[in-house]
């Protein structure tokens, strides 16, 4: 108990620094959340309520209606001029569009007859719907000039024009899901830094030669000491795990909690925490660090692993060389597992990534033990 308590008293001394890394993760979470919400809002703002009155029944006028209903909220009520004015005044709709009779014929010939658009002159956004219509019509015409049929031209326009509306819709769906995914992807940075910052100072303090000698002189068996430190390290790792998983889970919202995905994500962080703790033990076996040393190592290892292992930059953006080195970091396999979990890949792939993290951890730990042993002999 004595050693266990002393362990945590020393950890407590470094609490401000550890909390700093917790707050970095909190900040990242908040920033991701705010930016996601903002872009969702922007997208929503792009979609207006409009009324389209189609007096023509040509193919092109129908296609135009379809197009508009894809990018805006369209109703096709027929209203009187006064009613229209009222609705526009109270901002129930942005604009009222009338496709005049004979528009289809005109489109194929001179193009003089254009859809008419009514909107509040004081609200310039009203113009934008007009512009969207013109752009679309021009594009369709241009594709037709290239020899495409009307249907083909419209399809081409769907692909090329207004990519924001389509792409946005898709990515927005993906992003909303991935707030959890991206927050959990950032966690290793916080976890690793916090674990290094809490474990390394304790071990370097106890391993300091003079103190170590004093403790040896007191006849404390090495096995007892190692046992208590192992227990303390595990408790510490679990506390940090709970803190970081809580941040990730709260960001994900109650929907994600206790789902299958969530359990996998939690298991992934558990594997990572184990590996990070073993790494910390390896470092403290090899180096005798002072306070400055601890923060230097924490920064180098924390940032290095995070960049190489896809914690900061998505794995697909990493260069080939970086990827090869990255594979030796637990972060790489953590990120891969995280991707797999949210893509719903099958279990064996995910479990393999878990296993690789643990293997890296054990390997690092063994390296540390060997170095310590060799040094003791010399």
């Amino acid at each position, binding site marked *: 108990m004595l050693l266990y308590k002393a362990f945590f008293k020393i950890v407590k*001394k470094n609490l401000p620094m550890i909390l700093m890394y917790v707050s970095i993760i909190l900040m990242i979470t908040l920033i991701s959340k705010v930016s996601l919400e903002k872009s969702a809002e922007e997208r929503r703002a792009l979609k207006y309520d409009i009324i389209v009155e189609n007096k023509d029944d040509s193919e092109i006028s129908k296609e135009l209606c379809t197009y508009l209903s894809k990018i805006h909220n369209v109703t096709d009520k027929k209203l009187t001029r006064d009613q229209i004015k009222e609705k526009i005044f109270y901002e129930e709709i942005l604009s009222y569009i009338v496709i005049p009779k004979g528009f289809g014929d005109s489109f194929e010939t001179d193009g003089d007859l254009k859809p008419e658009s009514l909107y509040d002159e004081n609200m310039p956004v009203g113009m934008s719907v007009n512009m969207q219509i013109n752009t679309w019509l021009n594009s369709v015409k241009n594709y037709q000039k290239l020899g495409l049929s009307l249907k083909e031209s419209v399809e081409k326009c769907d692909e090329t024009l207004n990519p924001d509306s389509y792409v946005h819709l898709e990515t927005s769906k993906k992003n909303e899901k991935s707030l959890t995914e991206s927050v959990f992807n950032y966690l290793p940075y916080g976890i690793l830094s916090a674990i290094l910052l809490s474990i390394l100072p304790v071990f370097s303090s106890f391993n300091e030669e003079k103190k170590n000698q004093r*403790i040896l*002189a*007191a006849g*404390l068996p090495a096995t007892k000491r190692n046992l208590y430190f192992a227990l303390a390290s595990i408790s510490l790792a679990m506390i940090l795990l709970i803190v970081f998983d809580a941040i990730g889970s709260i960001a994900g919202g109650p929907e994600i909690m206790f789902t299958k995905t969530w359990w996998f994500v939690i298991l992934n962080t558990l594997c990572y925490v184990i590996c990070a703790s073993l790494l910390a033990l390896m470092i403290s076996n090899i180096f005798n660090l002072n306070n400055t040393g601890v923060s230097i190592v924490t920064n180098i290892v924390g940032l290095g692993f995070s960049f190489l292992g896809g914690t900061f930059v998505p794995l697909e953006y990493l260069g080939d060389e970086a990827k090869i080195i990255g594979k030796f970091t637990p972060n790489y396999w953590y990120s891969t597992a995280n991707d797999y979990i949210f893509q719903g890949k099958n279990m064996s792939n995910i479990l393999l990534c878990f296993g690789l993290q643990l293997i890296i951890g054990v390997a690092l730990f063994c390296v540390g033990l060997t170095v310590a042993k060799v040094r003791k002999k010399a």
Partner: protein
Amino acid sequence: MEEIVRVNNLVKRYKDLIALDNFSFSIKKGEIFGLLGPNGSGKSTTINCILSLLTYDKGEVYLFGEKMNVNRNDIKKRIGLIGQNVAVFNELSVYENIDFFCGLYINDKATRRKYVEDALEFTGLNDYRKKSPKKLSGGLIRRLNIACGIAHKPELIIFDEPTVAVDPQSRNNILEGIKDLNKNGATVIYTSHYMEEVEEICSRILIMDKGHEICQGTADELKGQIKNTENVILNVKYIDESDLEGLKKIHHVYSVKYADKVLTIRFSGGKHNISHVLDYISEHSINYERIYSELPTLNDVFLEITGKELRD
């Protein structure tokens, strides 16, 4: 009297260097045993071998009548070590430090609490109990270092140069404390290269050099072994070579040395030696600033046996 420490023919090599060369001695219960020697003579090495903190090449160590080895944690529990360097946790407060090191020996919480209080009281650190060691002065941190080593009330306490870089006031404090510990029943090993300290507190002294014993006994016994009985010392700005020869001819003088404007005249036996020197000086009109007579010190013992000064 019970023998607390017995060291037999200890040999310790660091590669080519022989740090301990067939070193033997024994300490009886209740002694303050002084281990005096110049820097690098092997004092710390001896301590570390006694406690099995170092492996040695030859020899045996018996503590409390039992053979000591690295696994004898039961024996280690009866000893307190105050090392040459301060070894405390900067992350823990004064109280927590003493409590931690005491806790390595004493499991019972109530006993421990009492012992820690006793140690705080004993070292005069009561007012600093909540402070971080980083904020303590040099003298106070030495006292903390001592408190951590004695809180568990050990039967044998080993001090390895506890007064290095300590101001005179704290030094006296520490020396008085060691005497008190001894009065309360602890056997003490005290290593130092300060002869005055050793002379002041030790009941028996072993002078060592280059890993082996030069001589041992009480301070008086040691001084009795040498021919030197008195030194007359003068501060002189200038003196002729012929006068140095002249001084040598005074009865009982066996050595005259002039260095750094200090003239040292050594006598072996004789009475009123200083007045004979004064007679010579006034006869030859030698100017001096100060003259005094001194009884031999342990330094003279060391000098006479090894031919070099204890302090470099």
